[in-house]
């Protein structure tokens, strides 16, 4: 359905019905705003006021939350809101030309609402469909994959004819799993309940011991020992414990969690339920990124089936006192919410600003309760370990990096998709298997990870060598690594939460300098400033987003320096603007364009 543009007053009964479905609880704020927007198209001031008074918040607090999330709109937007995925992989596949084409066909400027209020076209951060891009997100609900000029032309016609999105050709919405190499996690799904039965038979203490025996480390990026995290959370005093699955897969280039949630949802929920058994938790949340909104109904159906199968709810598998259920919270476009304390703030209906740590969520998380936050892939691994034992998992991979790891492979290769390998596998093996040729560089772990040059392809993907959260983006020798780094700089500036000085201002300054270099106005001084920003952000930011914002810059300057040097005008300071070009307005106004109307040597 495409959202209608009724005034919020006309839709007041809708709002009342929506509010009635939630307890008058400020922690439901983000979910209410998201659903309200789905009904009304945007969040009008009077609707925000009504929500505020119902939830006992101030209008400014509600405005503050609405203004934080990229997918919430406090101004009218198009009835069709088109967001082109703007990861570098989408660009490699031609997304920019397609965006320009669509805008031209619809007569709109990117980022601006069309004069008739029909459509707006913008870019958004990676939508997690890099193996089947260029992709776009429409009305924050449906995703379109494998865009090409024909689809774009047809789409423009459908929008002009106001055909509702669900009536568009079904093939456009096809999301493929593209599993190219499966191991234990992507293999045949386990029977629902199998892992849970095993861990109930084993008991909570022994199950925790198996997790520890497996030496599993969290798959979200930080690589903290999962068993230790569970133990710390279990021991933390509190009236209740909470289990959270982090499905806010926002790292550009990563899409493995999307496939796990489509294919292995039972394993994800089962892993969470095993955790609930070990921790004695009664409540769990799956925090689903807004870009994966299309997965919500299928996931809810899986939860419903599991309730019917006594795998969730009260007396799970007939065990008195084992009560646990899972609610799904949908995000609204904020990469920083992948950071676990920001995710908890967001779950609580607030701006997704990372918290001061310590205390860590394991001690003081959701509403102050001890909270376990693990990634989707981690919970899948937990289900496997709970069923088959920790020794089996520990026997895969390397001693410090046990088990398998799923890689989301995209970019310049013949077979993009998911590849699951034991940890310790060399980069060259992935490149060979995915059909990469003439590879110049690989970005492992997304923009916040590491960029490897050809002489490093024998390095192994493991916590002790090249760690990764899952992204594996391939660039062949035709690609400009400076432009790759510049795209990532824009990404971090766009996604900075704005809380701390170095990240808020530093990422914006980084963009300014990279754009200045791209514009051909660079000098050695600009490179020095970029290095200075790198050092400062790396050490002083509040959270990891700002700390890693300069990683792509640092790696590419170090390894692909000519890509930067060819952009330098001079070694001395060079201003960021072209003085002669600035005079063009005066020339136009005076009707002069003779040599004397130009600056010297700049004709």
């Amino acid at each position, binding site marked *: 359905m495409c959202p209608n543009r009724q005034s919020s007053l006309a839709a007041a009964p809708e709002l009342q019905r929506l509010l009635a479905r939630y307890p008058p609880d400020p922690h439901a704020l983000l979910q209410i705003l998201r659903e309200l927007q789905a009904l009304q198209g945007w969040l009008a*001031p009077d609707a925000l*006021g009504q929500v505020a008074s119902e939830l006992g918040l*101030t*209008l*400014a*607090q509600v*405005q*503050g939350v609405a*203004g*934080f*999330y*990229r997918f919430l709109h406090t101004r009218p937007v198009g009835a069709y809101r088109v967001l082109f995925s703007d990861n570098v992989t989408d660009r490699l596949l031609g997304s920019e030309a397609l965006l320009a084409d669509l805008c031209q066909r619809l007569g709109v400027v990117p980022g601006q609402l069309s004069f008739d209020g029909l459509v707006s076209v913008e870019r958004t951060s990676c939508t997690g469909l890099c193996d089947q891009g260029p992709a776009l997100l429409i009305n924050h609900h449906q995703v379109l994959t494998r865009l090409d000029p024909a689809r774009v032309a047809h789409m423009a016609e459908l929008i002009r004819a106001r055909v509702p999105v669900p009536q568009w050709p079904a093939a456009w919405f096809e999301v493929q799993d593209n599993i190219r190499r499966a191991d234990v996690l992507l293999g045949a799904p386990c029977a629902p309940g199998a892992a849970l039965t095993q861990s109930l038979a084993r008991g909570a203490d022994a199950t925790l011991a198996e997790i520890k025996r497996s030496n599993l480390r969290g798959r979200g990026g930080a690589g903290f020992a999962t068993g230790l995290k569970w133990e710390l959370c279990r021991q933390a005093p509190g009236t209740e414990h909470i289990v959270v699955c982090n499905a806010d897969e926002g790292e550009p280039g990563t899409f493995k969690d999307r496939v796990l949630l489509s294919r292995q949802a039972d394993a994800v929920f089962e892993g969470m339920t095993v955790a609930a058994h070990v921790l004695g938790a009664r409540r769990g949340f799956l925090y689903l990124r807004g870009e994966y909104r299309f997965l919500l109904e299928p996931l809810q159906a899986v939860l419903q089936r599991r309730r019917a199968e006594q795998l969730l709810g009260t007396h799970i598998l007939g065990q008195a006192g084992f009560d646990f259920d899972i609610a799904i919270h949908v995000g609204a476009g*904020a990469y920083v919410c992948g950071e676990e304390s920001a995710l908890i703030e967001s779950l609580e209906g607030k*701006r997704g600003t990372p918290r*001061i740590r*310590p205390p860590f969520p394991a001690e003081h998380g959701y509403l102050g309760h001890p909270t376990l936050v693990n990634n989707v892939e981690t919970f899948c691994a937990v289900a496997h370990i709970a069923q088959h034992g920790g020794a089996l998992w520990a026997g895969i991979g390397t001693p410090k990096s046990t088990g398998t790891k799923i890689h989301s492979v995209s970019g310049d290769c013949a077979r993009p998709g998911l590849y699951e390998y034991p940890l310790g596998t060399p980069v060259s093996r992935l490149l060979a298997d995915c059909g990469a040729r003439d590879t110049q560089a690989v970005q492992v772990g997304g923009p916040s990870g590491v960029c490897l040059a050809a002489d490093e392809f024998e390095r192994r993907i493991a916590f002790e060598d090249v760690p990764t959260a899952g992204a594996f983006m391939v660039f062949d020798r035709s690609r400009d690594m400076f432009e790759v780094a510049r795209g990532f700089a824009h990404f971090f*500036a*766009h*996604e*900075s*939460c*704005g*809380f*701390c*000085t*170095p990240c*808020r*201002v*530093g*990422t*914006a*300054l980084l963009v*300014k300098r990279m754009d200045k270099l791209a514009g051909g106005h660079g000098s050695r001084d600009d490179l020095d*400033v970029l290095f*200075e920003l790198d*050092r*400062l952000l790396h*050490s*002083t*930011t*509040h959270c990891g987003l700002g700390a890693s914002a300069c990683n792509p810059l640092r790696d590419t300057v170090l390894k692909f320096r000519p890509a930067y040097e060819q952009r330098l005008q001079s070694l001395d300071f060079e201003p*960021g603007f072209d003085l002669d070009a600035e005079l063009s307005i005066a020339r136009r106004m005076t009707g002069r364009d003779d040599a004397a109307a130009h600056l010297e040597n700049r004709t």
Partner: protein
Amino acid sequence: MTDDVSPTQSFSLDGDDLPFASGETILQAATRAGRYIPHLCWHPDFAAHGSCRICSVKVNGRVGAACTVQAAAGLEVESNTPEMNRQRKTLLQMLFVEGNHFCPSCEKSGNCLLQATAYQMGMEGPHFEEFYPNRPVDASHPDILLDFNRCILCELCVRASREADGKNIFAIGGHGMGTHLLVNSASGQLGDTAMSLDDRAAHICPVGVILPKRRGFVIPIGQRRFDLKPVSQQREGDAT
């Protein structure tokens, strides 16, 4: 915070032993001992915020915000070092280019913690290109002027209004470089709120955003708090 300072509990600040009470942060302990660690968003009466990062110090070789890092026995804290002061100066320069700061004509000049800290860190110029944001002034309140041009998003007014005044006049909106202070009223104007000149929030701003009207130059520039003594030689909580 408790005052049961155990003499056996101490950490090192720039080579000097500093005692601390359990539960104190590095900045709390340093301030109580009369040691200056530059800061903007921290105030002794409110919980730590950790947003300005000016109080960044090196703790056992890793950088952290002194206002949020818990003091612990045996920590080696480096604060007043060329490296940390250079980083602070850069952070200050970031804050200056992000907003619109016209110190010579600002009525907060001499009473401004940002300006005083910049002097302390030897900041002589902006270093980075200015952003020149468009931030209209709110003069709707009879007694208080809001000049958002200087806001550094320390949230002291947000915290003071919520915790000390119980009014929740302010909130934070937007994200990234668009992060900004919000006023809680349907119009978004301060004149439509219950804000009073007697509120704690009216006097907590470390820069020149929240200004009492008709008082600007009662004390001439040159005779103000930080004109008399540099910020490092003043006690935290001294009257502005």
